[in-house]
């Protein structure tokens, strides 16, 4: 990939009189270049990109959802996860094309605001920011469940449920760490993801062998669609939160090395890898106990599955892995949320102050606090399923619009639009991706749809009030 001029028309100013920041002159394998001699270094390689994607996703799908999903859909929850993975793939492909054409921070928000204009961009951008908060809160509540299970395992009986309290505690810790910590979090993230994949592979391999009867146990015979067909789709809508991570890779697109090659590989690769892990996990978990008993175990069902197979050491290993995984998911989401704030304030849709960097730590403290505060409120509700669905809703709206933006850009075919990766099967894939994304929303609970819609309307009103004059659409 050579130099790519990102020729985008920006104009107008917001209520505070701020205008969007100038677009860069060129994008290379190693940098984004502004004004000839100012460069933004790209430092995240393929492994780092995969770790962001997988690290964000693996926490939820494996460690929080198996019990809930099996309770809703029976053994067919396996199919729900496969559907989720398919939709994620249908969106990841178009997202890859857009990301190689516009490898800038902000991901989906950036593509949509440039492809379809400021109004759509604002709804998606603010929605993405809030959606990431819902997702972080969801991961933190999951983390709370795991930490509580540790107490239970140690035989410490508490007179109250510590789930929410622990979630809040970790929420505060994470926010503080993100503001004050300058350690190399990406390297830690890579190691965590590596360890998780190893633990899971060992565990799942054993589970599969057991399920097919190698160890004499044999599988619990069960009807596949024990809850009927409809719950398969509602469960797919619920567990779609497990597939939000690949968009986080696009959020840091401005920092990925060789974006033309690494972005598509990281996004599509992480979706494929986690889909396989999810499907196998659900299969193994439901085979071990049957959907009914699995459902009774709730959020930490995987611990019981591990205990069944491998005894106490297995339970402990999965507990540890669950803590790590939910923690890394929450961490990655908070960081993405602050990237989203940056992208919005760069384009004058939020006050520039919102992405201010403090000199002492070099971290965007305003954005991180603005994410951390609401996250705590959301954690305090403790409603796993609602948080997950609202997060999915807001992301699905973005995913659908990403696919639409791709179609719009392909049809208009502006001169600056030169993606180095082109989606296979155009226009079928993006059309299917858009329909599937919007379609999945219909299977959510009314409450989640309501909250999600309110967030979108509020985002639109904010845009009209604050930055109604700002135009960001790309030149034709």
């Amino acid at each position, binding site marked *: 990939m050579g130099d790519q001029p990102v020729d985008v028309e920006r104009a107008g100013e917001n209520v505070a009189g701020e205008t969007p*920041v100038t677009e860069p002159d060129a994008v290379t394998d190693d940098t984004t270049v*502004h004004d000839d001699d100012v460069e933004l270094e790209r*430092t995240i390689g393929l492994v780092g990109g995969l770790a962001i994607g997988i690290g964000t996703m693996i926490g939820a799908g494996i460690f929080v959802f198996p019990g809930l999903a099996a309770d809703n859909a029976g053994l067919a929850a396996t199919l729900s996860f496969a559907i989720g993975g398919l939709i994620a793939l249908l969106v990841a492909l178009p997202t890859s094309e857009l990301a190689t054409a516009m490898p800038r921070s902000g991901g989906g928000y950036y593509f949509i605001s440039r492809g379809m204009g400021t109004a759509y961009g604002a709804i998606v951008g603010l929605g993405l920011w809030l959606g990431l908060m819902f997702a972080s809160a969801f991961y933190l509540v999951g983390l709370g469940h795991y930490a509580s299970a540790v107490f239970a395992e140690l035989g410490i009986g508490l007179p109250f449920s510590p789930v929410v309290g622990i979630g809040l505690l970790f929420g505060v810790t994470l926010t503080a760490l993100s*503001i004050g910590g300058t350690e190399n979090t*990406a390297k830690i993230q890579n190691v965590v993801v590596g360890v998780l994949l190893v633990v899971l592979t060992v565990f799942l391999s054993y589970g599969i062998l057991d399920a097919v009867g190698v160890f004499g146990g044999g599988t619990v015979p069960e009807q596949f669609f024990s809850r009927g067909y409809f719950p398969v789709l509602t469960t797919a809508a619920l567990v779609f939160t497990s597939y939000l991570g690949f968009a986080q890779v696009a959020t840091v697109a*401005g920092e990925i090395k060789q974006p033309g090659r690494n972005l598509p590989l990281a996004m599509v690769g992480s979706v494929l890898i986690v889909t396989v892990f999810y499907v196998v996990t659900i299969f193994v978990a439901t085979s071990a106990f049957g959907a009914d008993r699995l459902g009774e175990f709730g959020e930490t069902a995987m611990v019981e599955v591990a205990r069944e197979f491998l005894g106490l050491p297995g339970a402990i290993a999965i507990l540890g892995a669950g803590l790590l995984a939910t923690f890394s998911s929450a961490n990655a989401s908070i960081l993405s949320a602050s*990237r989203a704030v940056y992208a919005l304030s*760069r384009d004058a849709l939020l006050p520039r102050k919102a992405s*201010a*960097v403090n000199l002492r730590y070099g971290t965007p403290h305003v954005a991180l606090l603005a994410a951390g505060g609401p996250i705590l409120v959301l954690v305090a509700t403790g409603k796993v399923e609602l948080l997950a669905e609202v997060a999915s809703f807001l992301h699905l709206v973005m995913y659908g619009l990403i696919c639409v933006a791709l179609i719009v850009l392909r049809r208009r075919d502006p001169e600056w639009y030169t993606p180095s990766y082109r989606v296979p099967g155009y226009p079928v894939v993006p059309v299917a991706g858009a329909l599937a994304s919007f379609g999945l929303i219909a299977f959510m609970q009314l409450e989640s749809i309501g909250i999600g819609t309110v967030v979108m309307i509020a985002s639109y009103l904010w845009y009209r009030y604050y930055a109604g004059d700002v135009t960001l659409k790309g030149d034709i």
Partner: protein
Amino acid sequence: MTDRPTILVPIRVLEGESVPEGVPELLAHAHVVLLGYHVIPEQTAPGQAQMQFEDRATDRLDEYERMFEEAGATVERRLVFTHDGQKTIDRMTTEHDTLAALVPNATGPVENVLVAVRGAVGIDRLARVVAGLFKRTDATVTLYHVADPDETDEDVETLMNGLLNRLESLGMDAATIETRIERDQGPLDAIVDAADAFDVVVMGESDPSLATFVFGMPADQVADRFLGPVLVVQREPAAEPDE
């Protein structure tokens, strides 16, 4: 660009690092690649830091650029916001094909230069840096070699004569060049000890990555203990390493 050696001067422009006294004069005959860089933690998008700090950093770089130009150097400059300072420096050395990098420490007027010679490898680049920077000055250059125990006197003589000839052919006056041979001492300690009496040290890089030299162990040992500027001559760039 005639025979001006290209020298990379990396400066952490927002962390109070500046161009120390004497450095512009030292590089008066060089083509300076002035790299202002700012390392930010991973929580922050590089663009975020750029949005806030670009103006301040540009002002400082303007000032530094002027200092080098007034001293007589030609200057090219870059401002980079990065998560990884090493990667940025390595990239700069390849993109600009620099001969050496400067560990910027203050110095007075340069009267004598210590050139640490390790071996025949990379000697041409070493010669080009030394001749390019100092042939038009009054500074005396001391070629300094710490011999291995199994190195014979003839080996050493061949090495030093080779370098001398190369320097002369590049236009240096042999009268300003001395040679010193050391035995029975660790090279690093020997260099640091000897450097005390000199204003500037020129030495070859011994690690594959220049950055480990600028920030890593040997640099700490030489640049920290020797308080003046150190010019680290890079090895010949390998034929485009493909990943």
